[in-house]
């Protein structure tokens, strides 16, 4: 199966990087990085946030220029000045965030994203050919807004494949996919590999890398620290190579909470605000003290709306629909619900959970709790906000210059630790965490999980909304799935599997139930 991953010695590497160095103001993103990618291999690029992976692939794709170092393409030294040149060489890249126009069709989106001009009819044919050849189901005439995230990703992949790349770079491609979609993606990637295409694969999900890749290069602080065969290493060993130390992955035994019901949704149905929003359909939910409940689901199935109605950013159609401690709060705004002990870690970090242009001290005020005394007689108590920011930085090991550091100067993982620390330090009775470790590296994710587990042990009811099933299976006592604005019944963690939840995430409520019956 991996015959092509062991090339004959005379074959030059498809891409060879030699001594690539790139310095940004205040940080050395790449420090003499050497890397060679052989034809027909799937090569993993591993590293924590800020290890320099993105910088490196941007240099390869011509989006950034290295300060120093040489690039060899199929044995010949070359300079890649811009992405168009990269594509002409045969380098394709699928980004973590898609750039698609919702209101245009699949074919129109692809036409916009490729360099050569192809007649529309011819393009539709070629899309059909490529998607049939690689098992990427895609109807070129459909509009993007009606497609799932997995289908949207296929557009990006097909767009790349149309240019017949010999090197395909994939940045965190599976972070938004259901397990079944991941399996299909892997089939496509393996087929591409067998045809001789080289794939550079970036992911935080170490099990996937062990499944897919024959070689891995590990970056730490901009330097190559290790090259290995990930199939011979455990996920834990890989993670420890990335962080350069021991990894304490927290665990939690599921509990059956019998405490009082703290947060409750009763038959909440809403109308979508915009054409691309999801309406909630008869959502019921109960959260008890001391338990962690997970909501799985592919993004865009109503999770953002659910969070907005829970936090108070959106008022419920009926006050009775949302209850905290049994009291109807559907008409209350975020501040009033916060006063009742509800805290929220929002999905977005910069621009939602924190204001990038403001200091960490100023950012403590975003979720100001009255009892913290940060504001008195309408005036901000600067000494107290600075003190609180410093306490959060110390307690949660946030890497930052200090309370006066601007929020945008922090890496994603550190900013998330700060936001979670800010919410947890107020000892909330209910905590809603949306995508708490999305895009966060293994070390920070473990710290965040540890914090949530400890908080639940102290009696807080926690709701975790995530696309990452591994995370939900580590943390949660009960799991639910959100699909098309509906929330499934909850299942105890011990009674279900990732496969079953994966089927539910794809909307196959019935199939999942049948599958369970078969197992039983």
């Amino acid at each position, binding site marked *: 199966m991996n015959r092509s991953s062991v090339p004959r010695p005379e074959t030059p590497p498809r891409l060879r990087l030699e001594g690539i160095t790139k310095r940004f103001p205040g940080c050395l993103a790449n420090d003499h990085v050497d890397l060679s990618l052989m034809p027909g291999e799937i090569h993993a690029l591993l590293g924590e946030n800020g290890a320099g992976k993105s910088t490196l692939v941007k240099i390869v794709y011509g989006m950034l220029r290295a300060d120093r170092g040489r690039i060899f393409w199929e044995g010949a030294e070359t300079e890649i000045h811009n992405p168009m040149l990269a594509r002409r060489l045969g380098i394709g890249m699928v980004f973590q965030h898609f750039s698609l126009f919702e209101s245009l069709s699949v074919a129109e989106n692809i036409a916009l994203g490729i360099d050569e001009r192809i007649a529309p009819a011819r393009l539709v044919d070629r899309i059909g050919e490529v998607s049939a050849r690689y098992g990427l189901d895609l109807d070129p005439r459909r509009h993007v807004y009606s497609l799932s995230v997995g289908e949207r990703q296929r557009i990006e992949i097909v767009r790349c494949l149309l240019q017949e790349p010999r090197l395909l770079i994939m940045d965190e491609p599976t972070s938004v996919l259901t397990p079944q979609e991941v399996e299909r993606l892997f089939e496509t990637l393996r087929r591409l590999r067998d045809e001789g295409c080289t794939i550079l694969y970036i992911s935080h999900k170490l099990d996937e890398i062990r499944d897919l890749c024959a070689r891995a290069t590990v970056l730490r602080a901009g330097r190559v620290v290790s090259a290995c065969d990930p199939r011979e290493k455990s996920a834990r060993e890989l993670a420890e190579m990335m962080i350069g130390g021991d990894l304490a992955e927290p665990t939690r035994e599921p509990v059956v909470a019998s405490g009082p019901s703290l947060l409750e949704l009763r038959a909440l149905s809403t109308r979508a605000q915009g054409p691309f929003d999801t309406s909630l359909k008869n959502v019921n939910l109960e959260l008890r003290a001391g338990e962690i409940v997970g909501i799985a689901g592919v993004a865009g199935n109503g999770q953002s709306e659910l969070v907005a109605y829970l936090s108070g950013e959106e008022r419920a159609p009926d006050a009775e629909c949302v209850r905290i401690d049994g009291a109807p709060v559907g008409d209350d*705004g975020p*501040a009033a619900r916060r006063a009742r002990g509800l805290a929220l870690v929002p999905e977005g970090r910069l*621009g*939602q959970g924190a204001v990038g242009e403001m200091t960490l001290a100023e950012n403590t005020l*975003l*979720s100001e709790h009255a009892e913290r005394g940060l*504001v008195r007689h309408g005036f901000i108590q600067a000494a107290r906000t600075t003190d609180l920011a410093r306490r959060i930085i110390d307690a949660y090991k946030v890497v930052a210059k200090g309370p006066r550091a601007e929020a945008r100067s922090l890496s994603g993982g550190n900013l998330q630790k700060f936001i979670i620390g800010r919410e947890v330090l107020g000892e909330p009775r209910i905590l809603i965490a949306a995508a708490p470790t999305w895009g966060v590296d293994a070390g920070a994710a473990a710290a965040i999980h540890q914090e949530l587990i400890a908080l639940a042990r102290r009696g807080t009811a926690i709701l975790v909304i995530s696309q990452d099933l591994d995370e939900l299976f580590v943390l949660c006592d009960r799991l639910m799935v959100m699909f098309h604005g509906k929330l499934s019944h909850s299942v105890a963690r011990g009674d279900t599997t990732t496969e079953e939840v994966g089927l539910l995430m794809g909307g196959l409520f019935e199939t999942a139930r049948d599958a369970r019956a078969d197992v039983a």
Partner: protein
Amino acid sequence: MWPRLEPRGETSRLMLWLTPLIAVVVTVAVGAALFAVLGFAPLATLYAFFVEPLTTGYGIAEVAVKATPLALIAVGLALGYRANVWNIGAEGQLTIGAICGGGVALAFWGEDAGAIVLPLMLVAGTLGGMAWAAIPAFLRTRFNANEILTSLMLVYVATLLLNYLVHGPWRDPEGYNFPQSRLFGPEATLPIIWEGTRLHIGILIALAVAVGGWVLLARGHLGYQIKVLGLAPRAARYAGFSRDRLIWLTMIGSGALAGLAGVIEVAGPLGQLMPSVSPGYGFTAIIVAFLGRLHPAGIVGAAVLVALSYIRGETAQITLRVPLAVVGVFQGLLLFVLLAVDVLVRYRIRFRADEAAAA
């Protein structure tokens, strides 16, 4: 290859404050070139424009008189602009403020009402400006109508209303049919604080407002909410700061200060209502607000600077025979250069194709 803008990365705080100064220098240089092309001696003209007014006590007082309404209005506008609430209609709110304050003065005309009149006028003018600004605030929060358009359109309504009043019901019966009201009595006129000039206590009010605005933005929770709404609307939603409430407060606040500036103008230097109570202070204050970096301290400095261009514009046409339109040209040039310098501080121009793609 077309030139492209490429981010420079980190912008220093020093540059942020230096850019208005650079803009002023560039504007003066361009102005000098303009004068030279028009056939005036550039240095002498610049001297007459920017230095001469400051050589006499009267000149300095006049600059302060003109800077007063500019600073008052610009501080209010800056609060709104920080929250992405774009009140462009300060000129209209100023006019309504002048009408309401002037109306009070005329109502008490000839009666010996004493010290109550002036405070009443100031309150009426402020309330008038607030009411006028409340219209776009309502339309924005209720119907999501763009406040830039509605507030701007209301300027013309206000101006026409003032015209009607001074041509009709409020015209001075003993004024030989000139379209202007009676001269206000002494109890309806702002006290002069510098004998022999027109400098009145309005300047103290403007300075107090600037200090208040500064404290509000730097320390007030309301100022914080305004900044968060402007910088990150989703964070404001997350925090539970009501967008509608902040739109109302900033609109009404800037309207109140514009109205106050209007009544201070008629109770101060003008002393009566006439068809035009302002040489465009409400619009010029927009330039002042940006030139002052939307910061009250910066705004006071910017107001003085822009006031200078007003002063000389009025007399330059007599002494130098420069057209009055030069004032508008200078003010427009200043805003244009400021915006350009702002862009160039953050971005550099690249002509080479390969580097352009890095953006």
